């Protein structure tokens, strides 16, 4: 289906942009941390937190890339069914919608899970918990 092919290509582009953003932010942070270490600078709490933001950002973007992979996989399946037998297209469309809803649910769950203490409901999270 032509419109889904366009969506598929758009998603591929979004993934590439996100992968580039992850790589650039990582490189940027490594340059800054390299400078700090090279000059034996002591970091305070705010700098330590700032350095860790990149990790959280990378995890969030990676989770979105995984969600996009899942959406593309389901578009592939739908397209295959559609091309094989147009009679089952409606059924395939319903299945696609169902899968996309599941993917969205998983992506939202990961947004919270990978936010650490930045997640709204974990602002007061105990920093270190010993068992």
């Amino acid at each position, binding site marked *: 289906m032509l419109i889904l092919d366009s969506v598929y290509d758009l998603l591929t582009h979004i993934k590439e942009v996100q992968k580039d953003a992850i790589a650039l932010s990582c490189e940027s942070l490594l340059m800054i941390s390299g400078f*700090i270490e090279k000059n034996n600078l002591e970091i305070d709490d705010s700098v*330590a937190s700032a*350095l860790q933001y990149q990790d959280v950002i990378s995890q969030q973007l990676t989770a979105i890339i995984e969600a996009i992979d899942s959406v593309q996989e389901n578009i592939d399946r739908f397209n295959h069914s559609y091309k094989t037998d147009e009679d089952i297209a409606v059924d395939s469309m319903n299945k696609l919608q169902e899968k996309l809803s599941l993917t969205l649910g998983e992506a939202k769950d990961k947004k919270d899970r990978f936010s650490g203490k930045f997640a709204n409901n974990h602002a007061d999270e105990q920093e270190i918990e010993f068992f």
Partner: protein
Amino acid sequence: MPLVIFVDDSETALASTRMVTTSMPIEVKQYTEAQVALAEIQAGMTPDLIITDLNMPVMNGFEFLEGLRKVPSTQRTPCLMLTTETKAELKQKGKALGLTGWIVKPFNPAQLKQAITRVLRLPA
């Protein structure tokens, strides 16, 4: 000096922990792949403390911990999970696998140092 190993697939996360621990009386080794750290432990490396991320490709933090517990020399080695994950069920799973503690990212440098000092019983 006690050997502390950090395992995290994020190089920037490792850089953060390296900068925070640089002034501590410990030897630090860092790994971006848990399976590589595990292989070195199986080959004879004996860390005094292991601090690992949970979500990593190939081998995650729980799988790494399970592997560690199968190696006689690290069956009782203290292990801290350093992760963005905050779910109670994951903490429970970690506890059941013998984790010493759970640290939520982003960590506070002073508290991370305190945790290492406490677990290794270093002079405060």
